[in-house]
């Protein structure tokens, strides 16, 4: 038998290590938030005071506001397309039996596996050939392609445990097919649909690899603008903009946790992860 103290020590090491990893996951984000409040004109962490000056400065800058607007519109539109195409696709993939279903399923998940940079290049080349390169629509179709899998995956996950006989029961009791869908199926897939849609919004909102192929000086998303800026210089104002995107992330995670529950969101996304 192994003596008890060595088990205790092992446990202690594991728990200390895990909390350190948690700290490691938080520090880079905390550093940005902290540095955004610093009064000095260069980045400092921990901050040497407290000011909201940098936030004021970026909110006065029209180009940032326009980039935020473009990104927001892009994220909401891409998520809307993903919602309208992904939910019906998931319903069919979960319920119907037909030849070639496996291949179709794989097709719906393949944008997750193909490198974003390859999809970005592909959309640019394709859009150039058709004459809509470097436009909002070119970015939108690309974003929609990469966020559809998230909606399909979470909707599918919520359908898999669901007993189709419930719907049959509803119909036997005299409900129409549409009634059965809205009264039985929809409430069951709701968490999956909410989680998938929020994922779609955030994945689009933070994307650089696709957008950068199709941005121009006048058509900028906020991540691409940040990226261009950070490569040449960094200052507290850029930390304030970055911190703003962190607040959005925290907000979305909070909504997900309250609306669906974070562990459920995580397990829904595990269905069919991996290439």
């Amino acid at each position, binding site marked *: 038998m192994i003596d008890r103290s060595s*088990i205790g020590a092992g*446990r202690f090491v*594991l728990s200390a290590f*895990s909390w350190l*990893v*948690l700290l*490691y*996951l938080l*520090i*880079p*984000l905390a550093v*940005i938030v902290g540095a955004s409040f610093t009064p000095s004109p260069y*980045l400092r*962490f921990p901050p040497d005071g407290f000011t909201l000056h940098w936030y004021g400065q970026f909110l006065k800058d029209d180009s940032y506001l326009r980039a935020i607007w473009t990104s927001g519109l892009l994220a909401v539109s891409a998520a809307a397309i993903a919602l309208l*195409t992904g939910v*019906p*696709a998931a319903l*069919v993939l979960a319920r119907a*039996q*037909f030849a070639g279903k496996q291949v*179709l399923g794989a097709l719906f998940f*393949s*944008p997750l*596996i193909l*490198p*974003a940079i*390859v*999809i970005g*290049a592909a*959309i*640019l*080349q*394709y859009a150039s*050939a058709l004459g809509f390169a470097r436009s909002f629509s070119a970015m939108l*179709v690309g974003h*929609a*392609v990469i966020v559809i899998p998230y909606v399909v995956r979470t909707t599918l996950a919520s359908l898999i445990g669901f007993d*189709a006989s419930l719907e*049959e029961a509803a119909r036997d009791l005299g409900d129409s097919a549409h009634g059965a869908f809205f009264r039985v199926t929809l409430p069951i897939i709701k968490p999956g649909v909410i989680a998938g849609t929020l994922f779609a919004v*955030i994945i689009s909102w*933070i994307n*650089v*690899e696709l957008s950068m192929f199709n941005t121009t000086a006048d058509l900028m998303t906020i991540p691409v603008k*940040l*990226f261009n800026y*950070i*490569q040449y210089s*960094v200052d507290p104002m850029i*930390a304030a903009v970055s911190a703003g*995107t*962190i607040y959005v*992330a*925290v907000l979305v*995670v909070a909504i997900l946790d309250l609306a669906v529950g*974070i*562990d459920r969101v*995580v397990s829904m996304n*595990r269905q069919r*992860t*991996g290439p």
Partner: protein
Amino acid sequence: MPISRRWILVLLGPPLIFLIAFFVVPFFVVVISSLHNQQGDWTLANYAKAILDFYYWDTLILTFTLSLYVTVICLVIGYPLAYYMIYSLKSPLVRRFFYIVVVTPLFTSNIVRSFGWMVLLGRRGMVNDALVGIGIIERPIALMFNETSIIIGLSYIMTPFMVLTVSGVLQNIDRSLEEAAQDLGAGRFVTFLKVTLPLSMPGVVAGSLIVFTLSVSAYVTPSIMSGGKKIVMSMLIFQQYGSVFDFNFGATLAVALLVSTMLLVGVYLLLMERTPRTKVARA
């Protein structure tokens, strides 16, 4: 309730058309254009150029080497955390807090996360301050803009994927197998080595694949963390599209990256298939 053929068409048609139009066809446009020169003639010259020039091989090898380091680091950091979350955390509230902390970085862009490390690793950053403070180094050293900084940045970004994938598999392991091992006199550590670890191998394999493939194609983090001083494949690809404007050669590099990654992944899966340990886990 079976869905009728008509409904299958109605429900599946639009999403399918969308994906074909904006994903499948564009992808084939890339493949086809990699086989053309800029004048529009069919040619293999782009591939010859990519294969015969050692520069591209060096870049490819650097990309894969960095990604391999990142995968191993993520495993070393992520596995224990996943194990701790599933096996040691009893309170649902604390576990929820852990999940939130693991997921939140995934919801912030790679730029912001790399930016955080840029501040931390700078000459006057916290890491240098700490190293000088402890006395490991005498004066601040250059931690940014080299291969190490790329590995640090990418490992940070990929860790959540590893944690979530491994914890998913750990969660589904049948606890009675571990109890049986302990009833038979195995200690906690032996139980872990002989039962839990082999059974969690599918998670390790899947997690490594996700981390590796995402690292190979990562663009933002290597660009920021290397300051352009080290070039990886994705940077070469974007250069062709963004500044050289040779779409055909850019397409060739993209296809080359994709094919070589798929080959490596195939070899890895084949090797894992042959390892007795994973076979046990699958059984």
